[in-house]
Every structure is written in structure tokens, then in C-alpha cells.
């Protein structure tokens, strides 16, 4: 049977349950999501965008879902201990797809007017605010990750920063997968930055118990005029997790957005970023790292839509693939008619450490304006033999030389991360990863 049909029926049978556990604003878009799923189904391998990742197969198992919003207790303090304590952030937690109130969250101090917390609560208490943004970017005119998520999402995280407000201290949202049964998780994130506001948000995706998970994360980001956002998404889960994330970004004029995706440890991952410049003079820095081995798989697909003139986008994704890992990168930059003075650079570099590792890369550039500066490029190769021998001649053993070259390769992307303590943390985590000291997720005691 068409796997989408299962989910349509599941929803129809449990609609009341889903809606009771959520909020009116989130319920009001479920009909549209249902229509989308009925019409387009789920993404499958026959679509060019999903050529290397058969997402529809991930939906085939009979996943459990926590539609009744049963309390799935996670002892947050016990479960999570950050490996690099210098990263001083304001902490928030999502247990599976439910916002978990915690002592740390209530102690966080935020400027007046800022909301950081449960999306469901916000939708109940400030429906007029959430309604303006929720579901406005997620695309319902295509096979439906956004549709499934919108259909079942009951809670998630909202960050709302009013005009002119600057949050200096980074916010960190830790998402913990924890369950006694195999579980499908529908997580929703909404980030709204008002005019001239600033924020930094770090998403850390962890898995506690070694169950099978299907994680669907849909995030919508509104960057208002002149705003600045740093958004980091770090996946540190394990082999039994399948993750699909879709990130929609809309940038108003003169906004500055940085997005960095790091897949440090995972099972099968598909990340999609769809970013639109809708106001002139904006900048986007979009970067990614994937360090994968065994049978891990990472597929990053990015789409940057230059709708207006005078915007700059910079993309750099570096992968290191070991064993029989497989990776895919597809990056599309569209420069529309009239989007003059666009500057766009897209690079994807990959190192396959074994003959069994596979990388598929597809940079694409589509330009309908004549006064632009755009370039793209991709490489797939091995570590530099000449550099390796040079280092060995100086007495650096082969294994150490490999390590240093891989670190340097990934370091190119880490160098683009603006948040300095995160850079240090990433350098250390990446080194541990390459040394095989990071077998599962670093922060979780349950994995040790």
C-alpha cells in the first residue's frame, strides 16, 4: 500500500486525539496538510530531489506515535551532560516532540517581549502571533514532509524576538529522543526575528535509548528587516535514527543569516534547506559538515532562491566518508529575472577514505539575470598523498597525519562558524569522532 495512505488513515482515525493535544492555530492548518498528502503522497526515489535517499521507505514500519501526549519522563539533568561546559547558553529541551519545562528553562533571562518555549503554549496563549507565521513557509504543494509534520505536530519550540531586541547569549534547544518503543517524532520549530533584532540558536539533536526512531523536524524561520540570526543544527544521534529535516527561511531586506548543519553521528539523514531572499541587501552563509562511517547516510539538499537584487549567498559543505558510508549533496541556486548584483558561491568538497564509500554531488545554478557573480564547484577525492608523505618525512606517523588532514579539511567549514565557543567545541568533537572515541552521542549517559 502507498505508505502515505497509512498516515492519512491514521490521522483520520485519531484526529480528535491529535487536536486535543495541540492548539487551535496548529489544528487550523491540518486540513491543508491532509489535502497535500492525499494529492502528492510522500517523497520517493522516483523524484530527482530524493534520488539518493528513499525517504518513503522510512515511513513503512508501523511507527509508534505519542498522539495521546503521554508523559514520557526524561530526567533531563541526568540524561544530558554537555561535554564542553564552556559553551554558555540558555538551555531548553524538547523530549521527543514535546517541550519539556525544566528548572534551567525557567531560570533563563531574556529581554522583555522575547518568547522562547513551547510552541503549543504560545499557540494557546498568543494565537494571533503564532497564526501570522505558523505554516506560512512550509510548502504544501509538493510531496509532503511538511505535510506529514503539519498533520501530526502537536508541539515544538517557538523563538520570537520583537523588533529591535538583541539577545546576546545563545539559546540552545536540546532535542532528546527517548522512548521504550520504536517511535516516530514530529517536531516543529518556529523562529521569528523582528526588525533589527538578533539571536543565536543552537539545535542539538540527541538520542538517548537505542530504539529505532523516525524524526521529522520542520522549521520555519522569518528573518525580519535588518535582523541577524545564527542557526546551528548539530546532529549527534545514532545508527538507529532516521532523520528528515526541512528548514524554510525567509529573509527580509538587509538581514544576515548564518546556518550551519553538522552531522557528527547519525543513522540515515536527509536535511533540506529552502531559503528565500525576499528583500534586497541580505546575506546568507549556509554551511555543512558530515562525518560518517559504517553504513551511515547523509543527504543535504539546499535551495537558495534569489528573488530580489543585491543579495549574497555563500555555501560550503564538506563531507568525510569512511567505510561504506554514503553521502549526497544537491545544491541549487536560482537567480531570478531582475535579481541583479547577486553574488553567490556554492562549494561541496568530499573525501572518500575507502573504495566502498560513495558520494553523489550535484551543484546546480540557474540564472535569469545578467549582472551577477555566481560560481559553484564540487570535488570528490582522497586525502592528499603528497601532504601525507611530507608530514611523515617530518616524523608525523601516518595515522596522525591522516587525522590532521581530515581535521584541516573539516576545519575549513568550522572556520565559518561565528560562535567561537561552538567552534572550539566542534573542533574537539570532530577530533574525537575521527579518533573513534565518539561511538554514539557524546552528551548522553545512556549511550555510554
Amino acid at each position: 500500500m502507498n505508505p502515505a495512505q497509512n498516515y492519512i488513515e491514521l490521522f483520520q482515525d485519531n484526529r480528535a486525539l491529535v487536536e486535543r493535544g495541540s492548539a487551535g492555530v496548529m489544528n487550523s492548518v491540518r486540513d491543508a496538510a491532509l489535502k497535500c498528502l492525499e494529492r502528492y503522497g510522500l517523497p520517493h526515489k522516483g523524484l530527482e530531489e530524493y534520488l539518493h535517499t528513499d525517504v518513503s521507505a522510512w515511513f513503512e514500519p508501523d511507527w509508534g506515535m505519542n498522539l495521546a501526549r503521554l508523559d514520557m519522563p526524561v530526567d533531563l539533568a541526568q540524561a544530558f551532560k554537555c561535554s564542553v561546559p564552556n559553551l554558555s547558553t540558555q538551555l531548553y529541551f524538547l523530549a521527543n516532540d514535546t517541550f519539556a519545562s525544566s528548572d534551567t528553562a525557567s531560570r533563563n533571562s531574556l529581554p522583555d517581549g522575547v518568547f522562547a518555549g513551547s510552541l503549543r503554549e504560545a499557540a494557546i496563549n498568543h494565537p494571533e502571533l503564532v497564526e501570522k507565521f505558523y505554516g506560512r513557509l512550509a510548502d504544501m504543494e509538493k510531496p509532503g514532509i511538511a505535510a506529514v509534520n503539519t498533520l501530526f505536530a502537536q508541539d515544538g519550540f517557538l523563538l520570537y524576538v520583537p523588533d529591535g531586541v538583541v539577545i546576546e547569549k545563545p539559546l540552545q534547544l536540546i532535542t532528546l529522543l527517548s522512548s521504550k518503543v520504536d517511535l516516530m517524532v514530529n517536531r516543529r520549530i518556529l523562529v521569528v526575528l523582528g526588525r533589527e533584532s538578533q539571536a543565536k540558536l543552537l539545535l542539538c539533536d540527541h538520542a538517548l535509548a537505542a530504539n529505532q526512531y523516525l524524526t521529522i523536524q520542520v522549521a520555519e524561520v522569518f528573518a525580519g528587516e535588518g535582523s541577524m540570526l545564527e542557526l546551528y543544527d548539530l546532529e549527534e544521534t545514532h545508527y538507529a535514527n532516521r532523520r528528515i529535516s526541512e528548514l524554510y527561511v525567509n529573509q527580509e531586506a538587509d538581514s544576515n543569516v548564518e546556518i550551519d548543519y553538522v552531522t557528527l553521528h547519525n543513522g540515515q539523514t536527509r536535511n533540506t534547506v529552502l531559503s528565500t531572499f525576499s528583500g534586497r541587501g541580505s546575506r546568507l552563509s549556509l554551511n555543512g559538515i558530515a562525518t560518517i562511517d559504517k553504513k551511515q547516510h547523509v543527504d543535504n539538499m539546499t535551495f537558495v532562491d534569489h528573488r530580489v537584487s543585491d543579495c549574497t549567498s555563500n555555501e560550503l559543505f564538506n563531507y568525510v566518508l569512511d567505510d561504506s558510508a554514503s553521502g549526497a549533496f544537491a545544491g541549487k541556486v536560482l537567480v531570478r529575472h531582475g535579481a541583479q548584483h547577486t553574488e553567490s558561491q556554492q562549494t561541496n568538497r568530499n573525501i572518500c577514505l575507502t573504495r566502498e564509500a560513495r558520494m553523489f554531488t550535484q551543484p546546480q545554478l540557474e540564472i535569469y539575470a545578467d549582472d551577477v557573480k555566481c560560481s559553484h564547484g564540487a570535488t570528490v577525492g582522497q586525502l592528499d598523498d603528497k601532504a601525507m608523505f611530507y608530514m611523515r618525512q617530518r616524523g608525523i606517523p601516518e595515522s596522525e597525519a591522516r587525522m590532521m588532514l581530515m581535521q584541516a579539511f573539516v576545519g575549513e567549514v568550522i572556520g565559518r562558524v561565528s560562535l567561537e565557543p561552538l567552534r572550539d567545541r566542534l573542533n574537539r568533537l570532530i577530533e574525537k569522532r575521527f579518533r573513534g572515541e565518539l561511538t554514539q552521542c557524546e552528551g548522553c549517559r545512556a549511550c555510554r
Partner: protein
Amino acid sequence: MMLNIENLHAGIDGKEILKGINLQVNAGEVHAIMGPNGSGKSTMSNVLVGHPSYKVTEGRVTFKGKNLLDMPAEDRSHEGLFMSFQYPVEIPGVSMTNFMRTAINEKRKYLGLPAMAPTDFLKLIKEKRDLVKLDAKFMNRSVNEGFSGGEKKRNEIFQMAMLEPSLSILDETDSGLDIDALRIVADGVNRLKSPETSVIVITHYQRLLDYIQPDVVHVLYQGRIIKTAGPELALELEERGYDWVIKEFEDSQR
């Protein structure tokens, strides 16, 4: 004896290039190896430092009494063998400081010594940089990245000074150097000379030998050493070219 090469045969991709090299280098000596293009000079230095692409098919090499050919490249380095590369390699993303610290401490680990204290390491860097007039700013840069030709060669001698090898092979160190850079490089090499250390200078031209005085000069041709003499041979080669040595050799083979 520092280095003893006996009947060394070696090649690359199944093609034999060295066809029976015999060479003895004693502690404190400077040997020059000269020869026309394609005679096997670079093959010889690469084989000695253990480049994995080159295969030894016959012969023996001992370095300070140990069987050199049995050791991986890094151990040859730890034992005191250094090669200044004809084309120093750029390593983006690896800083000079990190590179040198790793190299020094790996050698110390091999010798059973603890890692060098950070202050001692910085002092050592300063001292050795001065030797080849290499500016401090290069230490934060990636290895050889953005270095000019002359800076790369000075960086080679700087690394040599840091690692204090007993035998240094200078592979065409003079290529691409202007006269000032050549002088700085040669001066660095000379100041590192001692009765316990030896140098093999591989060069096409006499030029570098004006600054680094060899004790012995060899001519390499078609994978063999066809003539060995004192420093005067280098001057004669500069004046008359290689043809007469080759002819002399071919006549003797008849």
C-alpha cells in the same frame, strides 16, 4: 659510518631507475650529488627517506648502523634523516605551529622523552626562525600556504633546524632561489653543520656549492655513480658540462 649504500636498485611503477648505487657518507662530511636531468637524483633521495611509491628491488642501506629500508618514513625521520623537498607541499588548514609541535613531540615520543613544554617549544621556534630569517607571522599560517618560493625553501631549512637531523638531504634546494635567498639558506645549513652531522646536497648546478662547500662530489648518471672526486670536480662540471664524464664512463665500460 653515517650512511652506507650498497648496490641499491630501485624504481617506480615497475621501471628500474637506480641500477646499483654504492655510496658511503661519514659523520661530518658534506657530499654533493650532481648529474644531468633524469639521472636518478630525486629517485635516490626519495628512496632514502622512504617514499611509498618507490620500490627497492636489490641492495642494502644502513643508517647509523641500522637497516634503513626496514623502517617506515616517520621512523627514518625520528632516527635523524631529513629531506628538504624540491617542491615543499602546501597543507591548507594545518598551521606551521601545530605541524612542528606534532613533529617534535612524535620524535620525542619515539625517543622515549616527554612532550616538550610549551614555553621551551616557543623559545626553540624563535631561535630557529632567526637562523633563516623567517618572520613570526608564518607560524600561524598553514604549512607552506601563501609562502613565496624563497620562503618555502627557508621554511625547509627552518624545519631542519627544529628537528636537528644527523643526515640532511637537500634535494635541489637551490632551484627557484634568487641569490639572497640562496645565501640565507646556505648560511642556515652551514651553521647547523657539526662533526656529528652530515649533508647530501643534490644539485644540478655548481651555484649552491659556492656556499655549501662539499668534501666529496659524485656524478650520477643512468642510475649509477659514474665518478667520485673532490670539490674541484664541481667546478670542472660547471665549466665543461657532463659530456666528458659520460664519455669517460662509457669508454671505461667497453
